[in-house]
């Protein structure tokens, strides 16, 4: 990050690079001018420019390679970059190539046009003219010197110096020297008195002189001065050589020089024509190559910068499409693309917000639903809802408790399907189904059925559900177990009846009994023996009946008054043994007591419980007569998270008829000839007052047992009856 900050902006680097390239190209172009001081650096500049081109080529190559890789990976924005770069390269390359082609054409034609045959010939002629002119002058000086040499034939050496001075002045030579045959200087004269040593001919000149006896040549004395050197042989006794140096007039020398210079330049240019073309082409190509490569490289960078937001947008869009709404793209520039990126950011924000809200709303709804479900589940009333096709949609825990059917497992099925699995509930389920199908308004019905805990009475209330358009979309049925309520009402009614009856009937009974005893006491002695017997029988009957009636009334009052007088801990097995002790003496009846180890204690009134046991055992004894088996078992059971002590009492008597099972615990229901029909009613009342329950164990009887026992009526059918009592256990 810190590195990014100190990095100069890319545009600045590009500007600097371009400046550098331009400078290099300008230097190269300047160096091409022969006169330029830079020309000495030409080779170096060429090399540097070439290296620059290679570097740029490398940069462009690297960019192309990376673009190709991105394209292969199908990275975002790579195709757009490729298109833009290709377009740019084509657009830049085409005009550059055209300009380059025509520049080359012009260059080559221009250079070729410098040279033609006429100029060639003119140049050669000019040179020849100069040479001819100089040649003529040389020949003239040769003749002059030959004439002069005649005056020096056999001149004495001592006089020679003087003669030389005269001759030199006469001829206009700048220097004149007389050499002996061996090349020794005999005499010398110079226009410049300071020149002590005369100009000496070289070996090559001597050689020519000896061959031709004369020598004439142009001798460049200094860089820009020409001399005509003439040497002739003086033919005397002793051959001598006379050398004369004639200056070429400055004007002629200049002209010759100029012609020569021009000729040489021309000749050189002519010779260098191809090299010139080559070097110009090279420079031009280098300029074009560098500019193009730099432009392409910059194009890569610029296009990458332009495409960067598009790339980011593509990535962002992909991320949003896959559900990541937390996309925040950097806004790089305040242009159209920047605006697009900003809009994208705003869009993702909104989507994220909306999706958050949706999720929150979903959670809210879910919470509400869970809350309602909790309430529904904890209702004591059973609630089952049905859809339009009367299939179960939901059911709460209480429905299971009431029906003893896991209704929630039958979601999506109709009640009729439940009937197949639970035949004992067939009747009530069918009637509910019928009501569901038919009722168009709120309905209410009481339904009774025999559950595992005995007869159960339900109050069903059904409400059909309608949509806002008035279409039937289902129904809700609420069940209330009103068994206990109805029983309590019945008990209360019977209690009231019993109390009044006892009060109204018991009062006249004592006077009736006393009157009958008095009649007996007073009249027994006074009547004849036959009459006295009749009286005794009659009064005995009256007294007996009154006593029976009193017992009956006592029973009633017993039933009517609250039985739970005191509450103590009762050890049930002990109590059972105590009660049974009163019956064991009865011959022909076997008792079998079975209880599990451990504490089997209840809280209750021992007198009432004892009465319950008496009533039930008496009942059984009456059922089996004088011979049979009575089984009593005690054990601990758990029901609805509460411990109960279950007392099961079975006999092997004729059993209970089906039609009696439902009403056997109601007062005045009896099958016996004698009896008030209150025994079992009192039992039930006491048990319920102790918070327990009692029911006939129907499972004990095999199917069809009732019919068999009814039709045969014989004691031999040991079908048996069973009662099950459950009392809340004492918890320590």
């Amino acid at each position, binding site marked *: 990050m810190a590195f990014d900050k100190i990095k100069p902006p890319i545009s600045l680097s590009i500007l600097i690079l371009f400046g550098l390239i331009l400078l290099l190209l300008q230097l190269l172009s300047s*160096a*091409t001018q*022969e006169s330029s001081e830079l*020309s*000495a650096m*030409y*080779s170096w500049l*060429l090399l540097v420019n070439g290296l620059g081109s290679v570097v740029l080529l490398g940069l462009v190559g690297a960019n192309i390679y990376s673009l190709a890789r991105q394209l292969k990976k199908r990275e975002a924005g790579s195709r757009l970059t490729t298109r833009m770069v290709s377009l740019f390269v084509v657009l830049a390359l085409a005009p550059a190539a055209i300009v380059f082609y025509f520049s080359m054409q012009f260059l080559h034609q221009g250079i070729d046009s410098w040279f033609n045959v006429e100029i060639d010939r003119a140049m050669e002629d000019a*040179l020849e003219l*100069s*040479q001819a002119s*100089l040649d003529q002058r040389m020949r003239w000086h040769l003749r002059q010197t030959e004439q002069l040499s005649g005056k020096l034939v056999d001149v004495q050496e001592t006089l020679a110096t003087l003669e030389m001075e005269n001759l030199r002045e006469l001829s206009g030579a700048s220097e004149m020297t007389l050499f002996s045959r061996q090349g020794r200087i005999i005499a010398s004269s110079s226009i410049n008195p300071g020149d002590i040593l005369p100009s000496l001919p070289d070996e*090559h000149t001597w050689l020519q002189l000896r061959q031709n006896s004369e020598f004439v040549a*142009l*001798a*460049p004395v*200094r*860089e820009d001065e020409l001399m005509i050197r003439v040497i002739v042989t003086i033919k005397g006794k002793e051959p001598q050589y006379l050398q004369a140096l004639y200056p070429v007039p400055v004007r002629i020398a200049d002209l*010759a*020089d100029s*012609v*020569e210079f021009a*000729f*040489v*330049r021309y*000749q*050189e240019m*002519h*010779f*260098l024509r191809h*090299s*010139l073309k*080559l*070097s*110009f082409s*090279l420079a031009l190509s280098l300029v074009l190559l560098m500019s193009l490569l730099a432009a392409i490289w910059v194009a890569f960078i610029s296009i990458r910068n332009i495409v960067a937001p598009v790339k980011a947008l593509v990535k962002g869009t992909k991320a949003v499409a896959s559900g990541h709404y937390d996309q925040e793209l950097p806004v790089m520039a305040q242009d159209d693309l920047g605006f697009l990126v900003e809009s994208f950011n705003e869009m993702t924000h909104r989507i994220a917000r909306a999706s958050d809200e949706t999720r929150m709303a979903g959670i809210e709804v879910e919470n509400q639903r869970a809350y309602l479900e909790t309430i529904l589940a904890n209702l004591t009333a059973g609630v089952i809802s049905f859809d339009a096709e009367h299939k179960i949609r939901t059911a709460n825990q209480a429905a299971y408790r009431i029906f003893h059917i896991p209704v929630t497992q039958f979601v999506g099925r109709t009640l009729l399907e439940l009937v197949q699995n639970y035949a004992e509930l067939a009747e009530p389920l069918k009637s509910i189904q019928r009501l569901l199908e038919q009722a168009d308004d709120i309905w209410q019905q009481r339904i009774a059925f025999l559950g595992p805990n005995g007869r159960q009475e339900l109050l069903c209330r059904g409400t059909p559900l309608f949509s806002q358009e008035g279409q039937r979309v289902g129904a809700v049925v609420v069940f209330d177990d009103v068994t206990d309520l109805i029983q309590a009402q019945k008990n209360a009614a019977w209690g009231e009846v019993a109390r009044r009856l006892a009060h109204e009937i018991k009062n006249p009974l004592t006077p009736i009994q006393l009157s009958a005893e008095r009649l007996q006491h007073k009249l027994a002695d006074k009547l004849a023996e036959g009459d006295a017997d009749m009286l005794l029988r009659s009064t005995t009957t009256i007294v007996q009946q009154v006593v029976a009636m009193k017992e009956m009334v006592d029973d009633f009052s017993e039933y009517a008054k609250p039985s739970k007088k005191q509450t103590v801990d009762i050890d049930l097995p002990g109590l059972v043994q105590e009660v049974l002790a009163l019956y064991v003496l009865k011959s022909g009846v076997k008792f079998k007591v079975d209880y599990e180890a451990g504490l089997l204690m209840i809280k209750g009134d021992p007198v009432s419980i004892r009465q319950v046991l008496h009533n039930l055992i008496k009942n059984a004894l009456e059922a089996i007569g004088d011979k049979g088996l009575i089984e009593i078992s005690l054990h601990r059971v758990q029901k609805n998270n509460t411990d109960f002590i279950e007392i099961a009492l079975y006999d092997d008597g004729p059993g209970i008829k089906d039609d009696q099972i439902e009403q056997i615990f109601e007062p005045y229901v009896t099958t016996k000839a004698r009896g008030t029909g209150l025994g079992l009613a009192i039992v039930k009342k006491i048990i319920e007052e102790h918070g327990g329950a009692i029911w006939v164990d129907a499972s004990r009887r095999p199917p069809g047992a009732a019919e068999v026992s009814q039709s045969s009526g014989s004691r031999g059918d040991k079908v048996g009856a069973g009662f099950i009592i459950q009392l809340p256990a004492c918890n320590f």
Partner: protein
Amino acid sequence: MPVFCHAGAPGAAEGFGVTVKNAEMTLQGDSYALSADIDYRLSARAKEALQNGVPLYWDVHIKTLQHRDYFWDSTLSSTGLRYRIQYHALLNMYRVRNEGDGELYNFSTLSAALDSMAAIRDFRVLERSAYVPGKRYAVGIKVTLDRDALPLPLRPIAYTNPQWYLSSDWTLWPLTK
């Protein structure tokens, strides 16, 4: 003083290039002087350029080195000669100019002109006082064609065309006195 023969110039096989044939150092008075014979052989291309008026510049590099055991050799003296050879169309002559003292020599043939450059006689290189007995010294000579002095259009070609690789290698020999 050893007389040195060398024949390792780049274009030797093709018959052109510069070779140092003999080179020796002699003690003259209180300084060492170099005498050498150099064989200049121009390639066809170089001859053609010369004929067309292109001047050729030659540099004769002469150096003396003092050997050091744990370091590179130190250069005691580095001197040289520079010649220019040019064809004069007007006079039909080859002109050799010693760039050091500005002296001009004209030759009617190329070989004579080249021969004039070939012989180096008694060129003072090193003061005698610089020589410390017990140390090791070496003398080197090398002749190069100054390609950067060629006309501009010719330079790229001169750097790439072997016809222009005329320079000799360094010829080194020990200085033992």
